[in-house]
């Protein structure tokens, strides 16, 4: 059985404590033939190389400046390309850097869930306890499990991603569409605008059709499937051959709550999440031009 997506946090006082926490996981991964990628600072790299000894050459040590600037998007892309189609994916160690802002950290953690949680990999996110308190708080809240020198421990302070990331959507690229709607009667207009924007973003015919369907189902969810006195909003942002659409609205009524409300949205998108924005349900739908099992 292949490894599901694992996303753990590591809070450490210094490089030695960090290496002490992650080393057993890296050793186990190397024993299993999995690849290991680290994106950590020079001092941590040096301590890690020494600890790994003759296994160090099997690890890909990448510089933070290479994969974490200007933001973590390059690391996300690197991880996706290194994840094989079958078998276990890599173990990735990412480290919050001195240049990491609270906003960057929140975006990274939201992106990791949004973009990578269908990947068979283990992601370890390391944050120094002495970093900016706001950044440490992001790291503390982002991970349901923490990795320590004593092993894995549950983290009761963890929160669901959308609660902690009010603005990361703004980092997905330029806004290409913003509109409001009130219910199903407006959705033909919504679909037309979404199709135009997604097509312009370079998604291609099939992916655009899938994106339109996914956003349509998300729109139906946020308006509760009925005409609403409250306006629902849709905002679409475009980056390199990808669009992220965020929709908010009053949501479904209490007695028609569905335990898996986004299953059709997920089926036709690369990723979808449900969170909250200003007390209202907020759905994010990521659609890309890349391969996705749901359409191809």
């Amino acid at each position, binding site marked *: 059985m292949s490894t599901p997506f694992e996303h753990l946090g590591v809070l450490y006082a210094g490089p030695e404590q960090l290496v002490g926490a992650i080393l057993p996981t890296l050793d186990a991964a190397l024993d299993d033939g999995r690849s290991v990628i680290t994106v950590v600072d020079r001092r941590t790299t040096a301590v890690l190389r020494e600890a790994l000894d003759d296994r160090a050459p099997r690890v890909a040590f990448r510089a933070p400046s290479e994969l974490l600037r200007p933001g973590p998007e390059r690391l996300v892309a690197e991880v996706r390309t290194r994840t094989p189609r079958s078998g276990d994916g890599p173990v990735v160690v990412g480290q919050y850097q001195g240049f990491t802002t609270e906003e960057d950290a929140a975006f990274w953690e939201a992106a990791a869930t949004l973009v990578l949680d269908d990947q068979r990999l283990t992601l370890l996110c390391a944050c120094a306890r002495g970093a900016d308190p706001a950044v440490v708080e992001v790291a503390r809240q982002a991970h349901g499990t923490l990795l320590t020198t004593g092993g894995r421990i549950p983290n009761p302070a963890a929160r669901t991603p959308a609660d902690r990331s009010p603005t990361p959507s703004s980092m997905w690229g330029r806004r290409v569409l913003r509109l409001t709607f009130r*219910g*199903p*009667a407006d*959705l*033909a207009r919504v*679909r037309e605008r979404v199709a135009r924007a997604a097509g312009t973003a370079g998604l291609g015919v*099939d992916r655009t*059709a*899938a994106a*339109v*369907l996914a956003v*349509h*189902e998300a729109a*139906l969810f946020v308006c509760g*499937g009925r005409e609403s006195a409250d306006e629902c909003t849709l905002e679409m942002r475009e980056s390199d051959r990808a669009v992220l659409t965020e929709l908010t609205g009053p949501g479904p009524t209490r007695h028609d709550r569905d335990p898996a409300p986004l*299953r*059709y949205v997920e*089926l*036709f998108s690369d990723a979808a999440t449900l969170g909250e924005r200003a007390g209202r349900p907020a759905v994010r739908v990521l659609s890309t031009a890349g391969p996705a099992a*749901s*359409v191809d």
Partner: protein
Amino acid sequence: MAPSTLLDRPRVHTLVVSESERQLRAGISRWIDDELTVGAKVLYTGWLDPGGTVERHWIAGPAGPQGARRALGTGQLEFVDIEAVIEETRGGADALLELQLGGVHAALDDGWDRIAMSAESAHRPMVEGEGDQVRRHESGLTDLVADAPVTILCQLAVGEEKDAAIRASVGVHHRDLVDDSWSAGEVDGAWLVAGELDAHVARRFAAGLRGALADDASRGGDPELHVDLGRVEFMDVTCVRMVALAARSLEGSPGARLVLHRPSRLVRRLVDAVGRPPTLLVAGEDTR
């Protein structure tokens, strides 16, 4: 009128459905102008305001057909007060058909070789049994267009009718209907659907689908409805669920099935995701 022109053949008994009175009137106006242009005698049944006259009806105004005023004057366009019809026929299908047949024969006797008929939404209360009257009446009209040079355009203003009336009307007109975003008709033995099918029109789509199923069942033998989705540009979960539900309703009849033709890849994935009952087949995958 609706954006989709589904069928590449003359439309002889069509239901036009619209949620917008303005859009509906625009479509009716175009249709009347077309019929007047080809020399048809147009019989239009509509509602007058209390104490009103046809000159004050929208059909004779700026929103109406361009040729309406002249045609009303020459008699090529004849307005029939719907209230008078209801009073005379008491809503009975047979009486209404007889009245309409009388109008057609009178026009033919006057030398018209083509007759076009249209009636505004009847605002039916849809009491018990009235659905049967609707079906009888529309069935009679279908027989009429088969035997005489008559074109019929029935109107359904969604905002003015009860849900039951909408379902009944759409169901009986499944062979040729034009809605705001979708249309349907019977072509080469299949129910051909076109346009965009989403949650907003799902109930009407379901009514049309049930009408097609009922029609198929009425021919005897195991119901086998073929639905051609080749011109469907968009279909959402709600409408796919309607198809699955309709297929499930056949499960009590051995041999009964609903066969989908030419669904897009996306629709096929959606059908599989929603769940396919054994009575729902996709042509080419499940059928020989």
